């Protein structure tokens, strides 16, 4: 996944959680939860949707790393690279923990 693809993915996930938020209007370096007015349930829904669509599971201790748009894009792009998936599609691939 390229960073552009990840960003597009984030925009789509965000639309499901908070349809009124325009990702382009969000400061990419600012805490996403504040900038997009997400509560902890919204954020969990975002992480869940990411898992459902890509199989990438972000452990709670990594939440600070995906707290901003920039952080999210970097983290997810790297995670997708490690998994060897170039695009969303193998939700069950990384289930074992």
């Amino acid at each position: 996944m390229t960073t552009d693809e990840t960003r597009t993915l984030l925009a789509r996930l965000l639309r499901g959680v908070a349809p009124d938020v325009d990702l382009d209007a969000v400061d990419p370096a600012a805490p996403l939860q504040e900038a997009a007015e997400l509560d902890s349930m919204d954020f969990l829904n975002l992480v869940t949707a990411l898992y459902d669509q890509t199989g990438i599971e972000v452990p709670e201790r990594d939440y600070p790393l995906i707290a901003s748009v920039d952080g999210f894009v970097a983290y997810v792009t790297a995670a997708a690279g490690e998994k060897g998936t170039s695009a969303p599609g193998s939700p069950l691939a990384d289930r074992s923990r």
Partner: protein
Amino acid sequence: MGDFVMPSLGADMEFGTLLEWRVREGDTVHHGDIVAVVDTEKSTIEVEVFDDGVVTELLVEPGEEVPVGTALARIGPPSAEAPAEPVTAEAPGAAVAAEAPPEPVTAAPMTTTAAPATRPPRRRTPRKQAARPRRGAVGPVHVRASPLARRRAAEKGLDLGGLDGSGPGGAVVAADVDRAAGKAPAPRRGRRTTPARPAAPAPPAAGAPPGDGDRQDAMRRATGALMARSKREIPHYYLATTIDLATALSWLRDANDRRPVTGRLLPGALLLKATALAARQVPALNGFWDDGYLPSAAVHLGVAVSLRGGGLVAPAVHDADRLTLDELMAAVRDLVARARAGTLRSSEVTGATITVTNLGDQGVDEVHGVIHPPQVALVGFGKVAERPWASDGMLGVRPTVRATVAADHRASDGLVGARFLTVIDRLLHTPEDL
């Protein structure tokens, strides 16, 4: 058995608009079935029936606004109206045939004997139309639309079902109605402009668009009226305590580490469960005030949900004290999603015996709430944050939360309220038992 009336979906509700029937004359209904969709000032609510029986007559047509208590339909005893049964199975399209069958005849005698003379005569008219095939009259063809869109469409005489929805989940929003009506004004708020339809099926999320100014004004007024009544009538007293969450959060971290992301718990779930259990142990805070205090044996935990774009609803998680943490978490997740999508059920908007507001995500340390009449207590949680903590003569840093309760002094005294907070505190120290 008898009349199915416009329910009071909140202490502040006087009128409701019937949006849609989910049953037809002749349908058999059971306790808990959703039979109608009603629009209040605050939101769109799916209304359940509390009797088993057969719908003998629909008295009010979709679109009509009627006072609370108005009969919407008549429900006859189960099986007694047997001839109606076959109608249940019919597809909506075939309903034209239902004009003739004996069903209306069966209904008629009941109408004449049961209807008190005081009923407004208008209610008789809709009966004929009930047998006509109607869009959205039966479950599956329900059209998702914002309340404002429904109103606009009704004004312009447009059929919502024929419109392409550009809102979340394909919901028809006001702009779609305007477009269909030939005038397509610029979207009311830049923030809402999701260009065209999202390609992915959007999960249930924001229902009434934030651009829906009318709805927000109405909701503001409804909340204001209820809170003003609360402050006028209820002698509140307020208590607060700080709870050490170190044990609870470390337990939660371990628990979540072993769970798939889809099964993760939020700290809020622990707070809600502890509150529900405390409410059971301290019944003086769990119930209703109606010319005297009526404690409730069941704990239906109201959860304040702020809607994106403004507004507040506090639907109830039923029997929250009996749910496991996982069940409670799932219930709250579902409730929040449906509150925001505008698909709450009547039992959820009316049933709460005590309400919790959790403003922790908004970054405040504590919240002193306003009780939601006719309940007698409101519990508040602020943000979970690391704070200095003295214990055993040592000063350390612990994650803590400020828990507060606003309680009705007519129903309880400060001592009882204090015990309630103490119980919550104690429960949160043994999270494995929650």
